[in-house]
């Protein structure tokens, strides 16, 4: 298959060998599970249980609320001991509502929805419903509700489903292991999703540095002529939805549009497996594979952990720290987020937990920009990071927006390549957040304005009615007088 080059990109040290040969191990059930209501992009789920309730494994404990949202399920059977607020696995460390479950060690399943024996004989809506009921979100890290993404087939004509097994972030090996150990399940899930989307073709894209995964996936896909397993070049950020689409189809996704506009939908391999489990077994998304790695971890591992296990549980399972970690990261080192502590839970988007040492993060004070232009030549989105950062530094967010800061995918390549250690991507994350906040405030003002207008119009109407009754009054009195 002909591949197309992507613009820019970097080649960081991958450091995947620490965990790539380690078979996925299952985490022993922790003493407590912490299940946050917001583990996905969109509105937080609505809580369905209260303190003291007994729950079964797989039971819906929080229901999706609004168009873009996801269900959450109990990862094991037990008792809800609290509904409280704990710090979220989020760089802000803000508290968020969380359901705390004390497992009863019986691990008893609730009544699961019936498996769909032949998913290709039912309508796509049935598949979408099942995916939504199973609380599946994009497991590559973006955590967008998968059912919503499957509905893209209604409004767009989808030519191809891209199954993303690139895993371009250093350290992470969870998708690699998943492809090696559960290739059949991933392929089955991909076929079901392609059917729901109406996509005739499936392309599984895997970076060349995962030869075993490529091999097992090729074997698993060999019986299906519509599936192609493609080795893509090793380059960060190949795993970005837009860049993978470009590499496979040769077409660039326009700014602020979806890949679906090009007839392509991208799903992660772990999402495909979750869809397989939901459709074929009726099993909701209650666990995921997490790579625990980094120089400060005694024994790096790939762990199948229930959603809600704490980061400390996973690190203990890896033998604890071998030295003091300088920082803790959820996700990969390039795009991952700093964790506020060890007490935060594993959520649906946790692909990795990295405890990095000072050597690994190479942090130091930023020097002035030397105008080398490295950031411009490696920017995978074709932006000019140096110029954007200058605008943002001087609070000219609008200028930065004009130069395309909203098209930045926050891959962090510019910060990585900068010889002066300028935190470029941090500037862009700030600008994007601040611009969104401005937009929200603007919408709020607009809403206030329309409410005020409606209020004034109502008062006027009432006043007019009153005036009309007053005007009629003398007339009625005269009639009364006549009658009297």
């Amino acid at each position: 298959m002909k591949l197309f080059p992507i613009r820019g990109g970097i080649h960081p040290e991958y450091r995947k060998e620490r965990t790539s040969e380690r078979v996925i191990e299952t985490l022993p059930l922790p003493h407590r599970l912490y299940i946050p209501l917001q583990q996905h992009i969109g509105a937080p789920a609505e809580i369905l249980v209260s303190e003291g309730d007994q729950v079964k494994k797989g039971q819906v404990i929080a229901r999706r609320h609004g168009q873009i949202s996801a269900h959450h399920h109990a990862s094991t059977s037990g008792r809800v001991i609290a509904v409280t607020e704990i710090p979220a696995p989020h760089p802000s460390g803000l508290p968020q509502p969380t359901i705390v479950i004390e497992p009863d060690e019986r691990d008893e399943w609730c009544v699961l929805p019936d498996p769909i024996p032949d998913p290709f004989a039912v309508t796509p809506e049935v598949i979408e419903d099942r995916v939504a009921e199973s609380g599946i979100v994009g497991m590559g890290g973006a955590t967008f509700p998968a059912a919503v993404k499957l509905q893209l087939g209604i409004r767009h004509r989808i030519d191809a489903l891209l199954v993303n097994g690139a895993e371009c972030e250093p350290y992470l090996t969870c998708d690699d292991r998943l492809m090696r150990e559960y290739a059949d399940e991933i392929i089955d899930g991909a076929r079901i999703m392609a059917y729901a989307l109406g996509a005739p073709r499936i392309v599984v894209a895997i970076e060349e540095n995962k030869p075993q995964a490529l091999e097992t996936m090729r074997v698993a896909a060999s019986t299906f002529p519509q599936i192609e397993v493609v080795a893509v070049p090793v380059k960060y950020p190949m795993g970005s939805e837009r860049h993978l689409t470009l590499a496979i189809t040769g077409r660039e996704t326009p700014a602020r549009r979806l890949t679906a506009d090009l007839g392509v939908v991208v799903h992660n391999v772990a999402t495909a497996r979750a869809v397989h489990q939901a459709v074929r077994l009726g099993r909701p998304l209650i666990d995921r594979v997490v790579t625990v790695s980094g120089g400060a971890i005694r024994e790096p591992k790939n762990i199948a952990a229930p959603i809600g296990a704490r980061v400390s549980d996973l690190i203990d399972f890896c033998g604890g720290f071998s030295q003091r970690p300088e920082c803790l990261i959820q996700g990969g080192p390039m795009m991952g987020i700093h964790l506020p502590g060890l007490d935060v839970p594993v959520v649906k988007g946790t692909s990795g937990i990295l405890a990095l040492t000072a050597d690994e993060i190479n942090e130091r004070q930023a020097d002035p920009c030397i105008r080398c232009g490295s950031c411009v030549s490696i920017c995978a989105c074709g932006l000019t990071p140096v110029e954007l950062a200058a605008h943002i530094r001087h609070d000219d967010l609008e200028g930065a927006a004009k130069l395309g800061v909203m098209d930045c995918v926050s891959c962090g390549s510019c910060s990585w390549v900068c010889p002066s250690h300028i935190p470029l991507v941090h500037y862009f994350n700030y600008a994007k957040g601040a611009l969104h906040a401005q937009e929200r405030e603007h919408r709020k003002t607009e809403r206030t304005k329309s409410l005020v207008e409606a209020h004034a119009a109502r008062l006027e109407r009432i006043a007019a009615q009153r005036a009309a009754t007053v005007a009629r009054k003398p007339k009625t009195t005269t009639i009364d007088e006549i009658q009297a």
Partner: protein
Amino acid sequence: MLIAVGSLTAMGVALGGLLGVAARLLAVEEDPLEVELQAMLPGSQCGQCGFVGCAQAAAALARGEAPVTLCPPGGKAVAEQLARRLGVTVDLSDHALHVPVYASIDEALCIGCTRCIKECSVDGIIGASKLMHTVVADACHGCGKCALVCPTDAIRMLEVPVTLAAWHWPKPSIDGASPPRTAPRVEDAGRTALA
């Protein structure tokens, strides 16, 4: 026939001309800048800026007698918009003191007098006479007029909490220090068997 047409045309032209002249001579003077500025303000006439209403505030802004940060409910977004239109630079750092607020009714103290409902210009309070009232937090824009009229002091203005959806990264400090992050606490590290 011709006379009728002619006279009517003549009357039309004459009266039209008169109207035209009158519109010019007797026009109510309205500063276009003022109109534009007023459109940017929330229009809830809350009076927190110290002016009677948004129109008066806009007039003062146009004359350059009021700072662009005058509108607390409008917040940073409105201040920035005004500054851009007026071509002034504005230091919004002190504006950060005006955190967005919303009204909240202590239901135990509410006596159902409906005074706050009458005061609310965005219909953000629901309730009826002698029944408990409550605030629709989404609609409230924090003008605080309800709190002033409450006879039992049951209304408090609370800060709008920062949620995960509303949070965003702070600006990197100008001297180029690396992004703030929370290093794991030492006691945490010790807890998981540090060698």
